[in-house]
């Protein structure tokens, strides 16, 4: 960066830098999309596949609620919206920041080297350099569910968007935090993957079937509860406490994830894996 710019005004240079990063991120997204188009057959298929997958789960729930009209206060519509928010949130975060579920293997395999040599913010650069194709279907599914079962008012749309935001960010931050453990432990890959799977699975079942310890886990270590309670605490009626707690959880996990990654990078030894293999 030229010193002249920073002398004339720190603010101007910062804006210029931010604009540079934004342009870079946009280019990454565009390239990812173009690369996805290269595999034309897979592209549509993968997206449609995920969409169908989610629909099939809804079929299960429809059958289930046909037998048991209400379970602990939950009805079919709630579970549909739960799937909408969970899949939709997972969808947008994995489309835009597709590398977050892969942080642990990236660290363990020494794949950070390439990113470390590039003049862009490391974490952001890693995250945007992959786009999940299946997740496109998840996101569209989320939107379709809103269209089908959501509340079609301005406030309803805003609440749904907020739900998507919370859910996407939680997936992103929790998985990132778990993945960053790979900086510290040798065999964190498997564990990070399990945590991620657990989070995704748990975020698609009604929160209220769990009691006691399981429920505490859902709102702390594996905070799927902040996603899975959204149909009740955010959409059905706006429960201020829940929403603020969810926002706080997002912030807390965001902070945790970013700090773990930042501290971890300082310990990053790209070569250790090779040494182990030898």
């Amino acid at each position, binding site marked *: 960066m030229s010193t002249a710019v920073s002398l004339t005004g720190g603010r101007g240079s910062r804006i210029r830098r931010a604009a540079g990063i934004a342009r870079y991120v946009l280019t990454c997204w565009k390239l990812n999309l173009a690369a996805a188009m290269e595999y034309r057959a897979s592209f549509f298929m993968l997206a449609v*596949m995920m969409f169908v997958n989610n629909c*099939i789960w809804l079929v299960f729930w429809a059958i289930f609620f046909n037998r048991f009209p209400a379970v*602990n206060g939950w009805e079919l519509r709630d579970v549909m919206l739960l799937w909408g928010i969970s899949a939709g949130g997972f969808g947008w975060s994995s489309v835009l920041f597709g590398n977050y579920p892969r942080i642990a293997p990236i660290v363990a395999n020494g794949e950070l080297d390439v990113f470390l040599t590039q003049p862009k913010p490391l974490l952001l650069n890693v995250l945007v350099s992959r786009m999940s194709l299946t997740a496109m279907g998840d996101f569209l599914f989320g939107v379709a569910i809103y269209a089908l079962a959501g509340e079609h008012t301005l406030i309803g749309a805003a609440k749904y968007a907020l739900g998507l935001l919370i859910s996407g960010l939680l997936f992103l931050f929790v998985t990132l935090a778990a993945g960053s453990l790979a900086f510290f432990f040798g065999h964190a890959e*498997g564990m990070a993957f399990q945590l991620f799977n657990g989070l995704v*699975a748990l975020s698609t079942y009604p929160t209220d*079937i769990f009691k006691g310890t*399981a429920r505490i886990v859902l709102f702390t270590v594996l905070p799927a509860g902040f996603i899975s309670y959204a149909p009740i605490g955010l959409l059905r009626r706006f429960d201020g406490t829940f929403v603020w707690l969810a926002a706080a959880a997002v912030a807390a996990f965001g902070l945790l994830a970013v700090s773990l990654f930042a501290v971890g990078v300082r310990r990053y030894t790209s070569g250790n894996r090779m040494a182990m293999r030898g």
Partner: protein
Amino acid sequence: MMTPALAKWHKYRAVGIITVKQQLHYRVDFIVRALFLLLILFIFIHLWRAAYTSSGSETIEGFALNQIIWYLVFAEAVTMACPQLCVRIEEEVKQGEVAVRLIRPIAYNGFHYMTYLAEAGLRFIVQLAAGSAIAWAYMGSPLFGWGWAGLAALLPGAFTVAFLLNLAVALLAFWVEETRGMEFVLQKLNFTVGGMLLPLELMPDWLERVCGWLPFQAVLYFPARMGVAFDGGRLAAFLLTQWGWAAALAVLCAFIYRRGVRKLNVNGG
């Protein structure tokens, strides 16, 4: 001197044995799958408990809570035991390894059938052990008497039908680059109309009737249902239906294979 039939038997048995040997090297994968099974069962134990409590009755369509959970254990163990045949065959075609298979004096489909059975059998035992651990702890002992025998009797047919369904899709790799999409749909059909998540009796009547006409029930519903509620009269019917589907699907697979192998493009020319 070995008779041709005996030599054939030894040939396919050898494929099974070497598969089991090789599979024993994938311990981490076993554990990962078992952990996932535990999580799913944990969730469903809570879900069904809540559902039974909400409904206020002891049994639903003749199934007690205990039976529903063990049904899920059996069905999930079969599901998790099934190898990813589509991925394997697709990779073989893409990487050109199909060449190494085709120069052997063994049927391509037969080779894969043996590896499938061997792998599925081994994995089933592991998954069943893992699933039993959690179900036993929450639900009490699985005293299903003859049910276990029924389960065992229906397993070979279940894995055979599962294999043939997957093979029919996997062989499409001879034509198209990507079979995952269709494999996915197949998997999901097993989940729903196959009765993985709930026995067919719990479905709406019209859907139950539809499922009765599809092959998917033979994979998960038959063994799991017989396992938790033995019914000697229906066992024969189940077996007959299972192997009937197996025969029909085998004909279909042979047909697809014969057409596909002429179309084959082996990479790396």
